[in-house]
């Protein structure tokens, strides 16, 4: 059976849940498809579910953990009547209005919606080198907060040079005896405060201009084969754990071929959250490759909810 909603929100990170809070308070009774449990970043609560302390979300002077923050946002959305479903959208058809969404593989769509807010976020990129797939969860990880504990007293590496790489490296020094940050360039992209923290940490070392060529190990990680991007020299880093934090790709599978994307694959939004498809709004990391913060994502979810509400009004819905 197909049900109809005025606003369908896809995603339940800060963008999706903030959009849900605003739409629910505007009496739009949004349906929120929050995703299914997974250990990537494509899951209810989004990427913050895989973090520890959030120190820069205003209103929490003593920091709050990512999972707690998301549980709070979820409870707040529910309190105002958002209808949260712990499942995934299999298919979305934006070619005609109302938009149609399938939550099962039935022929009939499960939900039709006057407006859709796409807040599907982004997920971790993998390196695409030999050994990576085979050794995932056997010493190779994309989630320091999940797996760091198991590397107590070991020498490990973090691959990447952005904020998340530095945050993971700093966190991992709680357990590991040393953490080598392997970065393709000779400087970090991470924010100043994160960089200073890393440089001041005695357990953190840097392998600059270094590219990973293979993850070594039979049953579990025994080393990391790397190449110097300047001299071309190959060597092996003696590590028993590897954490990959090289960036993200937006989760756009549902709308690929339907909506305008930027050259780098992110959903193109013009003013506010408007996409090129009327009635389809995008918020959070699926359309933001610049700021990518919990707070900007929440703000963008708010913008999308207000845009959607005003647009629905203009359409006489």
């Amino acid at each position, binding site marked *: 059976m197909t049900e109809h909603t005025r606003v369908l929100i896809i995603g339940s990170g800060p963008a999706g849940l903030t959009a849900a809070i605003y739409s629910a308070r505007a009496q739009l009774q949004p349906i929120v498809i929050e995703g299914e449990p997974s250990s990537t970043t494509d899951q209810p609560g989004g990427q913050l579910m895989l973090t520890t302390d959030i120190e820069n979300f205003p209103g929490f002077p003593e920091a709050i953990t990512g999972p707690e923050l998301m549980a709070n946002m979820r409870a707040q959305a529910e309190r105002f009547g958002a209808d949260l479903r712990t499942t995934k959208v299999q298919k979305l058809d934006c070619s005609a209005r109302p938009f149609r969404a399938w939550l099962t593989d039935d022929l009939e769509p499960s939900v039709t919606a006057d407006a859709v807010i796409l807040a599907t976020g982004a997920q971790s990129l993998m390196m695409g080198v030999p050994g990576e797939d085979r050794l995932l969860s056997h010493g190779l*990880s994309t989630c320091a907060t999940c797996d760091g504990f198991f590397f107590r007293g070991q020498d490990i590496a973090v691959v990447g040079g952005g904020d998340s790489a530095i945050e993971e490296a700093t966190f991992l020094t709680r357990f590991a005896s040393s953490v080598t940050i392997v970065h393709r360039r000779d400087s970090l992209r991470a924010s100043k405060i994160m960089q200073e923290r890393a440089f001041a940490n005695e357990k953190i070392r840097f392998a600059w201009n270094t590219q990973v060529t293979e993850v070594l190990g039979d049953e579990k990680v025994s080393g990391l084969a790397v190449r110097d991007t300047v001299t071309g020299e190959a060597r092996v880093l003696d590590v028993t754990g590897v954490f990959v934090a090289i960036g993200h790709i937006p989760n756009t599978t549902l709308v690929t071929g339907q909506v305008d994307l930027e050259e780098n694959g992110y959903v193109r939004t013009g003013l506010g959250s408007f996409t090129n498809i009327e009635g389809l709004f995008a918020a959070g990391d699926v359309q933001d490759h610049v700021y990518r913060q919990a707070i900007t994502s929440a703000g963008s979810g708010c913008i999308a909810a207000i845009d959607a509400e005003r647009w629905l009004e203009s359409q006489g819905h």
Partner: protein
Amino acid sequence: MGTTITTLTDATFDEVVGSSEKPILVDFWAEWCGPCKMIAPILEDFAAEQSDKFVIGKLDVDVNVATATKFSVMSIPTLLLFKNGEVVARLVGAKPKGALLQEITANL
């Protein structure tokens, strides 16, 4: 009327798992693990709905390092399915309920 989830420790693990009449699914988890929290309600559902097929135990890896090390658990959540005291399936990472049940059932 469902059964409950048994809390396992380094001290009780071998006895409980070794003497379990039904296959036992052991959840290696920790308080600080977000994905573990996501699958916790699913395991409670299993304990209630699947108790005729398998039972469920959970082991906090924070305080039971020996058992986690013994089974080479390096990533959580990890679910190990034991039959007659032997590991018959290893499921790593949080997954949707249907996918988990399918993998477990295939190995019962």
